[in-house]
């Protein structure tokens, strides 16, 4: 990266010595002002808008979480009481377990299948563009639409999944009724939507692995599966770390899929027994249905802390594996 900015500004000044424009001094002055202030002007709109609507709310969430704060009035400062209450709140822990459970069910298969797909796509086959566009179709579908389609596919009486289970003699499952079944249904939506995207990221990384590594391994008699684990996977490590962290962040904020899956009046509580309520849904319920802003903000902070914790764990595991 070269920074031409100040030097070129000088040069404009010198040029004006050769062919003096009218009002040379003013031109010089404007040129210098332009050089000095333009960069700030260019980044200012971002920082102003982002500061007001992005950064400020983030920090303010912490402040609100230390208050008893309901709609309308301003809050009463109560220190860490919201957090104390939160740690005693079975609904909060329930939502935490649901979120983590679905995070595992949605992330692990997604990334493993993506890895396999990518290694298959990495073969210099014909018609590759169509294949790549094909695996990407799901992320174009709006999340709410995904929720609607899969809710029907997993419906108790009219759903296709139960229809197929019926073929092999399994009784119809009420997918919404239990934790395990609703987690599976919701995770399917996430897996379906993101596998192709992750496969493309892996594919991009795989294409930059030097071919001769594989040739040498083949000469040494390493099997393809061994080559996959000993060459491909270590070489695309950065891509794997990236996708694990991104899926973790997204998984901790899971909201739309379970909400649409819920249908009807119990939607925001994730079923009548909160069997699939996620942390984001709990935050939403507290803040925008019960209007307990302080308590909702405390939940928001806990989501953030959990994300940081998981990122740290990811990081430690990845470093150890190295």
């Amino acid at each position, binding site marked *: 990266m070269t920074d031409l900015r100040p030097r070129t500004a000088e040069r404009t000044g010198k040029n004006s010595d050769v062919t003096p424009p009218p009002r040379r001094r003013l031109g010089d002055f404007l040129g210098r002002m332009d050089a000095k202030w333009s960069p700030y002007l260019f980044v200012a*709109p971002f920082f102003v808008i982002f500061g007001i609507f992005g950064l400020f*709310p*983030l920090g303010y969430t912490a402040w609100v979480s230390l208050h008893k704060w309901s709609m309308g009035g301003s809050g009463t400062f109560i220190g860490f009481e919201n957090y104390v209450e939160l740690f005693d709140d079975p609904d909060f822990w329930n939502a935490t377990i649901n979120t983590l459970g679905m995070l595992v069910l949605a992330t692990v298969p997604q990334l493993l299948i993506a890895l396999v797909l990518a290694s298959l796509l990495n073969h210099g086959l014909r018609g590759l563009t169509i294949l790549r566009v094909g695996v990407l179709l799901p992320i174009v579908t709006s999340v709410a639409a995904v929720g609607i389609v899969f809710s029907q596919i997993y419906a108790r009486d009219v759903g296709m999944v139960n229809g197929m289970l019926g073929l092999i003699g399994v009784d119809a499952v009420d997918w919404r009724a239990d934790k395990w079944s609703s987690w599976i249904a919701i995770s399917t939506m996430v897996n379906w939507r993101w596998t192709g995207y992750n496969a493309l990221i892996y594919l991009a990384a795989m294409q930059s692995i030097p071919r001769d590594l594989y040739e040498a391994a083949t000469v040494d008699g390493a099997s393809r599966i061994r080559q996959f684990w000993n060459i491909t996977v270590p070489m695309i490590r950065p891509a794997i770390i990236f996708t694990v962290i991104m899926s973790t962040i997204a998984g901790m904020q899971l909201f739309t899929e379970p909400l*649409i899956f819920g249908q009807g009046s119990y939607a925001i509580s994730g079923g009548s027994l909160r069997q699939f309520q996620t942390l984001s849904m709990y935050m939403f319920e507290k803040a925008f249905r019960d209007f307990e802003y302080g308590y909702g903000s405390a939940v928001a902070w806990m989501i953030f802390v959990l994300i940081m914790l998981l990122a740290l764990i990811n990081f430690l595991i990845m470093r150890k594996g190295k």
Partner: protein
Amino acid sequence: MRRSPVLVYCTLIAAIAFSAFPLYWLFVVATRTNDVVGDWPPPLLPGDNLGDNIARLFAAEQANFLTGLINSSIASVVVTVSVVFFSSLAGFAFAKLKFRGRNALLVIILATMMIPVQMGIIPLYMIMVELGWQNELQAVIVPFLVSAFGVFLMRQYAERAVPDELLEAARVDGCNTFRIYWTVVLPALRPGAAVLGLFTFMATWNEFLWPLAVLEADNPTVQFSLRQLSTTYYTDYTLMFTGALVATLPLLLVFIMFGKQIVGGIMEGAVKA
């Protein structure tokens, strides 16, 4: 590393069938009537009821689907244009201009990229109450006019795609910095900006949690309308599916037109981010 190509193709085709099937099913149900949806075996070919279903969709009182479509179109277009403009402007400054505090400001952008939006949603709502923007369309537009991710992406792109010689030549010709941006930098950034634009459009169109918090059912975005359908008409599958189909169609069209660029964008940008 040769495998049997037949096996590879079969697996890939299966994967694509799995990707495409729910979308196909979305279309099939949207063209059917409710009494056949639950049949076994399920109807696998489209019917002829799409027109009726669409009429019912726009007539469904609780959903305000037309308002939702218009609102989402306005919001997505405005946010996309704004994000592309401000991101390329700031990205250019970060990549090619020298100024005090540049690195510190860049670190702020990088650090905030990873922080989930949901974290700040309660104070954001309070700001909207202060401004009197509850249930107003600008509430789902203004907070999203800029994007940290966009600035970062455009900075990466500008570093590679804008040659320093070009900037210098323009400078010698007496262009001021904004003119350089407009006539030299922006055209060079076009492919990257297109990808950013597409992603921004999709993200805004699909935004769900925030509209649900700040808007009401009488002035929804299209995703909010879908949610209304799924709470009020949840036994009416053809109606819900028609809504989902209409809500997905604009994105599908965009994707079919620009699919190649999107794939390229993901493959180029993803890992480096």
